[in-house]
């Protein structure tokens, strides 16, 4: 029962959704919307275990005064303060909550994102070496595309009568590989989904057997 029940639900849910795919009737559309609604509602309580998990990790750290426990306090303070501000003064435009979002959360996230500018330079410098023919190809194409994307490179390409070389690379050979990978992934997704429905793949239940 502990495994068989959920496995049955999984199979039935899957079959119903496959059938739904072929029916354009309003009844079927409403059903689909309802399922999506249910999935959203279903996911809300899961947040409780998420928050419980991170609070537990950091509470243990504080209690045992493990290395860096002071930082764990910051997490608690931040969660409580930000959430309270949101609940008490609202989340509308120009609220303090939105200010915090704009000047703290967004700012830090954007900065994390922008680190990629540095990381791309260092990763390329370190690993773009012509060690093998394949690596050489990757290297050359990356250089050509990078060069073709800036004005200087562009004007050189025009003089070489190859104005659209970069576009061509992106449109054909690049697209071909993406499609080839995509077809494989599509098959992989279908097969894995099927195995989940049928209970052949039951890693999500935790381990196999029993």
């Amino acid at each position: 029962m502990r495994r068989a029940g959920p496995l049955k639900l999984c199979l039935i849910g899957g079959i119903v959704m496959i059938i739904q795919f072929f029916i354009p009737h309003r009844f079927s559309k409403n059903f689909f919307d309802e399922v999506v609604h249910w999935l959203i509602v279903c996911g809300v309580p899961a947040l409780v275990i998420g928050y419980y998990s991170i609070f537990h990790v950091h509470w243990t750290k504080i209690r045992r005064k493990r290395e860096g426990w002071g930082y764990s306090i910051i997490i608690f303070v931040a969660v409580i303060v930000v959430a309270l501000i949101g609940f008490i003064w609202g989340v509308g435009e120009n609220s303090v909550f939105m200010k915090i979002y704009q000047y703290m959360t967004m700012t830090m996230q954007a900065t994390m994102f922008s680190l990629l500018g540095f990381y791309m330079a260092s990763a390329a410098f370190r690993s773009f070496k012509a060690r093998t023919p394949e690596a050489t190809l990757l290297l050359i194409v990356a250089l050509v595309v990078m060069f073709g994307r800036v004005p200087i490179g562009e004007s050189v390409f025009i003089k070489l009568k190859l104005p659209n070389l970069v576009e061509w690379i992106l449109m054909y050979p690049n697209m071909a590989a993406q499609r080839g990978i995509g077809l494989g992934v599509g098959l992989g997704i279908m097969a894995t989904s099927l195995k989940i429905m049928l209970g052949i793949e039951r890693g999500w239940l935790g381990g196999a057997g029993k």
Partner: protein
Amino acid sequence: MYIKFKEVQHIKIIYLFFFAFPLFAQESDTLPLTQKFAPPLDVRAFDTPNDAGKSITVQWNLSPDNSLFSGYEIYRSEAQDTGYQYVGYMGRGISTIRDNRGVKDNTPYYYKVRGRTSTYEYSEFSPPSSSTSSSPQWYHKGKTNVLIGLPLFIFLIFWAVFQAKMGKPLFIRKIDGLDSLEEAVGRATEMGKPVLYVPGTSFISDIATIASMNILSQVAKKTAEYNTPIIVPNRDPIVMSVAQEVVREAAIEKGRPDYYNPDRVFFLTSSQFAYAAGVCGIMTREKPATNLFIGMFWAESLLLAETGNITGAIQIAGTDAVTQLPFFVTACDYTIMGEELYAASAYLSKNPSLVGGIKGQDYNKLVIFIFLALGTIFGLLGNNFIINLFK
């Protein structure tokens, strides 16, 4: 204002120039203004196919004066002669509209269309269409190809699984990224440092996440066996609970129930870059000897992989996100690419029915090759019927 007025005048002069002759030819100078333009003709209305109902598609033949109009106004009525109401407008040169503005199912409607210029001059109405009513459909005819393809796909998978279960030996080619998993875990054990496992940054409904959970199951068995700590930070609470279950079961299977520690398989935050910041912090402080990034990733991929590279960990990445693979390839030691991710659980577990599934995927690839070849051969001969099957 003056300019606007002048322009209007200008346009009127053009109209007069074009239409003066037919007007005189008809020997009548009392015709209403609207007859300056020929109306659109042959209005056809039919129930929109393959839909949820409450929609009628209307088509017409463009007026000979199409170029003078800025567009067409469409009117609808429940009676043929009277009561027409405006339901929509389409730009010049377009001859079809899908009317779903308050259409009731199983009610007969008539449609009329007229042209409109930019200065709000109109042509006559077209003759009304014949009566049409809308209804919802129970089967989407455009999806017949999927209806045929799906059983074929499933059959081939089953066939291969069946063969595997009957004991037919099946070969799977070497997948470097997966072979190196054991070595990577072993290295962490030797160094006495933890293994970091990032199960992607998507939800459980993403099949790549499930594939990641299957790999986690194999990895956790190894770490449990060697008693090497495994750290699994999560971006989604549901993925976290699955990951916890997977690690716990792996520990039990290896006879080490104490190995599982819920504080090591935890939720971090659901925000993408905050999560990346947290994992980068873990990498620099806990200094795991092995980093595994397996599942679905977005732009954070290089943030994680490059930080891990700085800390000197051995790194294996696996994802089906084509846009992120290049970054993993540049910053990781091994990369499990695309479909290899889905082959992983069969490859690692050697479970015959799972391996059979892989064989089934290959049978399906064979079918794809055959159709690609046939479609191209016929296509080059000028016959696109096979290509159109896949619309």
